[in-house]
């Protein structure tokens, strides 16, 4: 099936999926696909059931989720341009991942308890009941692996896990990807590194190499070869 045809059939076949084809540039004969409202993402029946089962379970108690949310936003607070980790739905992601990868459960649940015992010791309060200043006093001691004293290593390991999950959770959302500047995952006609980037890196394309690369203006011409295997279209 030709791309144009298959994209059309995608459109017709998935009105609920909200696929929209934008106008094509005739010169390049290319279209754009925008996936608006995904319905499923190519799961088998067994996989759907498995995911549904995980979603139905509740692993963290309400209080634990509150603490997770506080930690997420200490790790990635909002900036002028981008939202915080909780605004990107990271606590829900962590809840899911801890069920999906069960070996995370004890370190996370236990780490939350460890954090409460630390703050109880210092402030006679659960971590989430502490003031933001008090919370940071606890976190500052476990956030820097190089500087943390040996007796706080358990906290360092826990906070590092939280930092990893928060960063991965955030940068795999629409907001995070926008901030990162990843602009792929869409139909396009790749034609090499932009010239200003080459210049910035003091690199250039070897003319001999590039002369054999694809001429994108001929990509829609059906390939034909001579008897020696030289492309003639």
């Amino acid at each position: 099936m030709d791309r144009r045809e298959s994209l059309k059939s995608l459109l017709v076949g998935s009105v609920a999926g909200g696929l929209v084809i934008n106008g094509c540039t005739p010169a390049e004969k290319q279209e754009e696909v925008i996936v608006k409202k995904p319905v499923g993402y190519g799961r088998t029946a067994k996989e759907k059931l498995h995911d549904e089962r995980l979603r139905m379970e509740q692993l963290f108690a309400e209080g634990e989720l509150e603490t997770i949310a506080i930690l997420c936003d200490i790790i990635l607070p909002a900036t002028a341009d981008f939202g915080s980790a909780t605004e990107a739905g990271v606590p829900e992601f962590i809840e899911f991942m801890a069920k999906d990868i069960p070996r995370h459960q004890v370190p996370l649940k236990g780490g939350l308890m460890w954090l409460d015992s630390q703050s109880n010791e210092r402030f006679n309060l659960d971590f989430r009941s502490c003031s933001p200043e008090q919370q940071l006093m606890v976190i500052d001691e476990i956030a820097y692996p190089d500087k943390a004293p040996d007796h706080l290593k358990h906290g360092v390991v826990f906070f590092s896990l939280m930092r990893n999950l928060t960063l991965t959770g955030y940068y795999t959302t629409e907001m995070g990807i926008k901030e990162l500047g990843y602009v792929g995952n869409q139909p396009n006609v790749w034609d090499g590194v932009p010239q200003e980037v080459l210049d910035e890196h003091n690199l250039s394309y070897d003319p001999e190499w590039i002369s054999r690369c694809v001429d994108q203006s001929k990509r829609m011409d059906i390939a034909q070869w001579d008897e020696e295997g030289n492309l003639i279209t």
Partner: protein
Amino acid sequence: MFDPTNDAHRTQLRWPWESPRRGASTVRAFGDFDSAYGGWEIDGEPYTRKNGTEFDWFRSRMVGGRTNHWGRISLRFGPRDFKRKDIDGLGSNWPIGYEDVAPYYDKVDKLIGIFGTKENFPNEPNGYFLPPPKPRLHELYYIDAARKAKIPAIPSRLSILTKKINNERGVCFYCRQCSRGCMVHADFSAGTCLIFPTQKAGKSIKIFTNAMVREVITNDEGKATGVSYINKQDRKEYSIRAKIVVLAASACSTARILLNSKSSRFSNGLGNGSGLIGKYLHDSTGASRSAIVPAMFNRKTYNEDGVGGMHVYTPWWLDNKKLDFPRGYHLEVWGGMGMPSYGFGFNVSDLNEQFGGTVGGYGTKLREDVKKYYGAVMGISGRGESVPQLDNYCEIDPELVDEYGIPVLRFHYKWTDYERAQAKHMHNTFEQIFEAMGAQPLGEKPGKDQDYGLLAPGRIIHEVGTTRMGDDPTKSVVNRYQQLHEVDNLFVVDGGPFVSQADKNPTWTILALAWRTSDYIIDQLNKQNI
């Protein structure tokens, strides 16, 4: 039936947030968006390993099998690859040579499509190539560094359509997601390029899905008369009668079917008079290293997805006579500003220890760390040729069956010092190139205690050799047309007949040999020989 154009199956152009696990590999071995329904471990389909040896067996349970997610690296074997024993005295030669397979490689190139360049290298044959894509930024760094280290770098050879080859299939739209299955059929998978077009052309083919073949049935004369299979849905056994049986179940599954096809005439398994079915199992070797390229810190972002794989690679370039291992390897290059998925950002600030800045911490500085290192990591993987061993094999486990009641495979596999020495050399090469690039290798270089980073057999998913080809029926299972010596209407067209697996990915050779066998079957039918 899996079809990437079907929106219910499609994972191409999905975003990480569409997966609740953001693409993590908890459910599918290569991540949630990969189009392999299967993996190294499949519920209800166990296998075992003998004497504490290692082998990991990857299977895809779907139409088109493992061709749905493979790397599309499509390298022809060269003349030397068919005659290794002549060169180093180890193993066996193939009974056929490059000249026998070349016309079929040509046909495969034209039917399926492959990009690459004519380089006139003696053991990297030219073909009918589509033009390759231009190198990405990290690939330009790689080319420069390789040249400095006197290592060749050339455009890669992948079965992806950078240009139209017919009116049925689309052209690559550069999303780097071949492993997800292509909705415009711009890369090769058996479903999209062979099965669906045949159906569409109105040719009469019947496909039985969810059918686990248990054995090949034979009659009193020892001819194959069909297969028996378990329907996975109703869990009942059925049989299909056939004039000719062609097995393409993947090397180990084919061996399993033949070994399980026992009868009074074939007490040792069907066509196994040589006792070699399952023997000489071998996979490609593999080792990898990644590095960080300070020149690529804080990159300007732009779309550099490109095709689903590398645009540049290095074919084997040295003379083994001057080295302490007998067989070569090629180098694959990876990196760039890819789409984030589960694991992105893990331990990102640890890199500050080497490149300045605070390790750990929280807040806005983490956002800066992430952007500083994004797209600055690249890596090289070596994929090499191993020396096939009689003592590396799969056989029927004497006790265990799978959930369909079919006796399962038991593996016995050990790498030799040839492969270990090769992996050690790979790691030296990686460092040589990284140094020439001004890149900082990540992690520790694996030493002798870790087999120099050599991956476990089965991990490269190039396992072949279990029904080896030869002229002598006492030393091989199939003849030069992949016909069983002992059963003339039974053929094997997967990796089983490989006498030796070059440092090339096996797919293109499997396809060429399958076409050659098909021509032979037609010829033999016309002559009423089978």
